[in-house]
């Protein structure tokens, strides 16, 4: 038993307790379970949307990226901000449409807009293929955090199983209400811990930010600006654009829009979320502070920078507090992902096969699927090797392929047809899959100018997707035109 363990255990118990309490006074219909009865005010919607920023990926990965690669990490700050600008205009019409038609999932949205159950199934499959690796990443992060912050007293395997059981239990009981309540605790804790670490560590080790960045510049010239090749300016800008478009295409983010009580709640959040995003700056400071204090981490180990430096600097009890925060950053997004994946399988795959199933049956089905999805993710986490990493890199590019047909469907007159949407998404997803699985990139085409070589290859898939969508839509509309005239 060491000083850190009580805090880590308390985080798991707190999540469990809040998760169960969240259910009180609600009859858990599918509407309540998956979209909170569409009654969440500004704070809950804010926390659900912000919850996606502060995952284990940002906590470990954000600091690790700054530690290992320097300036390219800044892209995380930029793309979120631009996604929030888009959200002001894009989300209210989505919210309104979802409310009018009582939609539960992202897939439902496509089914309705394009009047195509087939498209719904395709979207659901793309979503699930992107969500499972994302959940695996949360579990993996959880394992690392508990093992390091607990000074090795708890193995990562035990931590992963425990975390999965806790999160599956409260998601089954409380659904999105559980996510919202635990998000309150998580964001309070992360706000305090990250800002403290980001201010204290540069001061403690360097005497301030300016001297820290000067010291880094001395030791590693050019580390805090974008390099001329590789993750260069061209990489940076194309990646910021691509990920800003993809941000709200994640089905669990998309689903959290549905929980809002009004469109105004969403618009208001577009003002505050960019500011909230700045907490990431403090995460970067931790990573930068670690560069000269815990040197030598490389490869996947760069993600340990924050905890290695914390263990070196603080007493065990405080490392325990940081660990507790880390546990919550895994559990809260994990709960959203778990609920979304279970809803997609029950509502958009199972119901597509058996259209007679009523909401009650689908609701029961979704809840029973929660432990199943959690189990699959745990097995992938424990057994999965490199394939999971490849899948994860694919995840963002996969969901981004939904962007063109989604945005076009918001226009008064949608120029995309059902066939166009299906063809575009399939073309985009296939490109992403081929590129990810073969490891292709522009650097393999040396005759291209270096600027183009550095572009994020996801852009290609998106452009291809868009072209196919437009061409197929034009062709199918023309084919449909004479038939419609004849019918009249």
């Amino acid at each position, binding site marked *: 038993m060491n000083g850190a363990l009580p805090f880590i255990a308390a985080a798991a118990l707190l999540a469990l307790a809040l998760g169960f309490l969240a259910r009180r006074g609600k009859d858990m219909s599918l509407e309540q379970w998956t979209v909170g009865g569409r009654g969440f005010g500004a704070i809950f919607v804010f926390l659900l949307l912000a919850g996606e920023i502060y995952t284990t990926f940002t906590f470990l990965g954000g600091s690790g990226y700054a530690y290992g690669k320097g*300036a390219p990490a*800044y892209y995380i*700050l*930029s793309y979120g*901000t*631009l996604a*929030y*600008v888009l959200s*002001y*205009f894009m989300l*209210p019409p989505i919210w309104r449409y979802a409310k009018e038609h009582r939609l539960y999932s992202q897939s439902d949205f496509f089914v309705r807009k394009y009047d195509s159950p087939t498209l719904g199934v395709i979207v659901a499959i793309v979503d699930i293929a992107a969500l499972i690796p994302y959940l695996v990443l949360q579990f993996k992060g959880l394992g690392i955090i508990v093992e390091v912050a607990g000074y090795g007293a708890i193995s990562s395997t035990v931590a992963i199983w425990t975390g999965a059981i806790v999160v599956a239990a409260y998601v089954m009981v409380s659904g999105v209400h559980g996510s919202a309540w635990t998000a309150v605790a998580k964001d309070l804790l992360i706000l305090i811990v990250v800002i403290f670490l980001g201010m204290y560590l540069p001061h403690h080790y360097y005497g*301030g*930010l*300016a001297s*820290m*960045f*000067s010291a880094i*510049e001395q030791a590693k010239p*050019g580390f*805090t*600006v*974008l390099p001329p090749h590789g993750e260069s*300016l061209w990489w*940076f*800008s194309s990646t*910021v*654009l691509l990920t800003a478009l993809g941000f709200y295409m994640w089905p669990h983010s998309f689903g959290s829009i549905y929980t809002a009580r*009004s*469109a*105004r709640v969403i*618009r*208001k959040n*577009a*003002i*505050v979320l*960019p*500011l909230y*995003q*700045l907490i990431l*700056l403090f995460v*970067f400071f931790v990573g930068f502070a670690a560069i000269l204090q815990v040197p030598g981490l490389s490869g996947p180990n760069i993600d340990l920078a924050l905890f290695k430096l914390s263990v070196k600097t603080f007493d065990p009890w405080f490392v325990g507090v940081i660990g507790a925060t880390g546990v919550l950053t895994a559990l809260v997004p994990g709960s959203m992902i778990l609920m979304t994946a279970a809803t997609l399988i029950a509502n958009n795959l199972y119901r597509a096969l058996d259209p007679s199933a009523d909401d009650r049956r689908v609701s029961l089905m979704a809840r029973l699927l929660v432990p199943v999805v959690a189990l699959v993710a745990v097995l992938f986490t424990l057994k999965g090797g490199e394939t999971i990493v490849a899948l994860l890199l694919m995840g963002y590019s996969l969901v981004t392929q939904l962007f063109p047909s989604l945005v076009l469907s918001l226009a008064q007159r949608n120029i995309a047809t059902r066939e166009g949407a299906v063809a575009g998404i399939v073309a985009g997803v296939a490109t992403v899959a081929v590129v990810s699985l073969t490891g292709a990139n522009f650097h393999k085409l040396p005759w291209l100018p270096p600027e183009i070589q550095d572009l994020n290859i996801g852009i290609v898939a998106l452009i291809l997707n868009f072209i196919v969508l437009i061409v197929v839509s034009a062709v199918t509309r023309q084919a449909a035109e004479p038939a419609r005239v004849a019918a009249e």
Partner: protein
Amino acid sequence: MRNIRWIAIIPFLALIIGPFFVNRVDPLILGLPFLLAWIVVWILITSLIMAVIYAADPANRGNES
């Protein structure tokens, strides 16, 4: 007043095109490398821009539908 929403394009220009002109370390601004400071300042301005758009948007006035 509806046209004011077009100022939402400015953050995109600043954060996607802007870095090409400010990719340097010096001068440090409030201790931050210049590129990082540029991004941080633009995040603050973006929040302001969204507040202006919100205030000017007739959809946010009166009773909520």
